[in-house]
């Protein structure tokens, strides 16, 4: 997968609150992310870590009382550059679904129960491809269904007449109707059984290979991301604490939280390991600890961690040329020394195109 060229999506310093004034809960703080064309970017974290909030805020779909209080979201497509946070309703409407589509967790709730599948597939065509007439739209909708392995006669069905897996496939087909550049998927397979999950993910990856769209994949299942994602960002209490290519993260995590997560589930192969969870419980977003938010649960906490919040930056000890790795931890500052398990050498990976 080529990483060359300008990034498709650049998020800098994004801050999102729920509520305002004194009641404001800071759900996302200073998030930085970069997504390239055709890349699968995974966003992992516990419930309440802010990953869904971040994704919805990017596309300005966050519901009230969510408010974006700062940052930039630069989206580049077909030569245009747009700051999604500045865009007006008309601009957003043009972009939406054309370039940026969304797939939600529960297809049962994301599909309108009183409309046929056909209507829900063709309405985007009607809105964004006015040159198509009704027959052309129907044909296109049938093609979309076939693309995800559903018989075209299902166009006349209603959502309640389909199984859970079929509904999720319909959602994917719907999202790809206009061949968008970026697909934001919020826990798309969590509600399905493992077998269907596997099928759908495989189909998704095949489609991605065929059409070349980028995916922002949000999930709490880190093991899933390691399989399908190119880059993974780990979130904790509204902050991105580590961001790295998937293989490097898996084999050589730098942040204590990421390390803890990776050692919370056993591998299928290899020697038996002692399972270590992460001590403590997720913080209350209204009463966050000072300094580094993770310090109460961190096994490597230092004095500095209680006072200052570490920025998301390139680890000092990282060899030159190895790019894409960012950590928010004082252990990786220039001059500090990280313990061995957090400073493992990331093996050289072949770039997969």
């Amino acid at each position, binding site marked *: 997968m080529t990483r060359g060229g300008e990034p498709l999506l650049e998020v800098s310093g994004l801050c999102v609150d729920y509520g305002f004034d004194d009641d404001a809960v800071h759900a996302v703080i200073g998030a930085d992310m970069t997504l390239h064309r055709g890349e699968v970017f995974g966003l992992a974290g516990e419930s309440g870590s802010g990953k869904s909030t971040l994704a919805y805020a990017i596309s300005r779909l966050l519901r009230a009382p969510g408010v974006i209080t700062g940052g930039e979201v630069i989206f580049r497509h077909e030569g245009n550059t747009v700051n999604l946070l500045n865009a007006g309703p*008309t601009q957003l409407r043009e972009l939406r679904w054309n370039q940026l589509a969304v797939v939600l967790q529960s297809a049962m709730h994301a599909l309108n129960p009183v409309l046929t599948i056909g209507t829900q597939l063709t309405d985007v065509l009607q809105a964004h491809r006015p040159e198509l007439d009704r027959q052309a739209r129907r044909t296109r909708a049938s093609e979309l269904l076939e693309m995800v392995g559903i018989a075209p006669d299902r166009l006349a069905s209603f959502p309640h007449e389909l199984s859970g897996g079929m509904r999720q496939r319909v959602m994917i087909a719907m999202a790809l109707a206009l061949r968008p550049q970026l697909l934001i998927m919020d826990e798309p397979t969590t509600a399905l059984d493992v077998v269907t999950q596997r099928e759908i993910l495989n189909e998704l990856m095949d489609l991605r290979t065929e059409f070349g769209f980028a995916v922002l994949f949000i999930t709490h299942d880190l093991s899933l991301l390691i399989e399908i994602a190119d880059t993974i960002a780990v979130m904790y209490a509204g902050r991105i604490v580590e961001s790295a290519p998937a293989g490097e993260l898996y084999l050589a995590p730098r942040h204590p939280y990421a390390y803890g997560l990776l050692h919370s589930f056993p591998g299928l192969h290899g020697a038996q390991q002692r399972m270590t969870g992460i001590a403590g419980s997720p913080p209350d977003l209204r009463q966050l600890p000072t300094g580094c938010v993770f310090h109460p649960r961190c096994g490597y906490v230092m004095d500095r961690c209680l006072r200052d919040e570490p920025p998301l930056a390139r680890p000092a000890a990282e060899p030159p040329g190895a790019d894409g790795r960012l950590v928010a931890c004082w252990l990786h500052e220039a001059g500090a020394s990280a313990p061995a398990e957090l400073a493992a050498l990331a093996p050289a990976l072949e770039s997969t195109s």
Partner: protein
Amino acid sequence: MLQFPKSGKIRLGLGMALVFTLLAIIGPWLAPFDPNKSLTTTNGVPQPPSGAHLLGTTQVQQDVLSQLLVGGRSTILVALIAGVVATVLAVGFGITAGYYGGWLDDLLSMLANIFLVMPALPLLIVIFGFLNKTANPPDVLIGLVISITGWAFGARVLRAQTLSMRSRDYVTSARIIGERGWRIMMFEILPNLVPIVATSFLFTVIYGVGAYTALSFLGVISVSHWSWGTMLYWAQSAQAAQQVHIQWWWFLPPGLAVGLFGTALALLNFGIDEFINPRLRAAGLTRRRARQAGLPRRAQLGLTPVVGQHVVGQHVVGKQLNRESA
């Protein structure tokens, strides 16, 4: 949880309801005259409000204010009795049907549906209409009969709620311990349904006022039995609104009284509604603060507001960039 309500609506409703309750209790003692008594026999024309008669007189020179005060007690009493009895029936039938399910549920549901679908006023007219015209049933009896037609809606709502609660953990555990059915219904399920029962009660009282007033207006209930509806019966018979000099003091007070009483209860209902369903809460109090914080006046779906742009690398703080266009 039981904080003093901040919403203006609820406070207004509560205040009004209290005034009416007070009126119901002490009204007849405040009345300056006997509502039945014709004060002079000469003039056949209703007199407008004056010093002697604060709300004027009727066609046969009866004092309107006295009629209003005496009639108020009857109206409110009948409505309250109808409300209480109907709510008791609704709670009994509804929770029982929802809890036990099976044939009992089918039977009670069918019964409730029949009463729901059958138009209430015509039924009440037939029931009361066959009573001898001179029979003057007491308020309590009238309230009881009206409650027969008013319990079904509340029963249906409570049944639905009970059904969803039946499978909750605390009910299941109570059952396993061996607690008896009626105890579970009374002490586990009912306490959680109090807001709905309250709403149902208020709704039924409003219905009771409406039904009683309508029946009195039709003359089905003895017209010598003073209530706000009876006042309107006499006013309509004398075509008070069609006279060249509109005799507004005759029909306006009783009509307004009924309307305001109903409004008070409806406002209370709104308050309870908003308490149950936070989505409906009026954003009024927070709206001003929100606007001061720079948020747009109306929350628009699909257009998350952006407030205060911190441009990365520079210090541009507090600029409101989200101008609402089109």
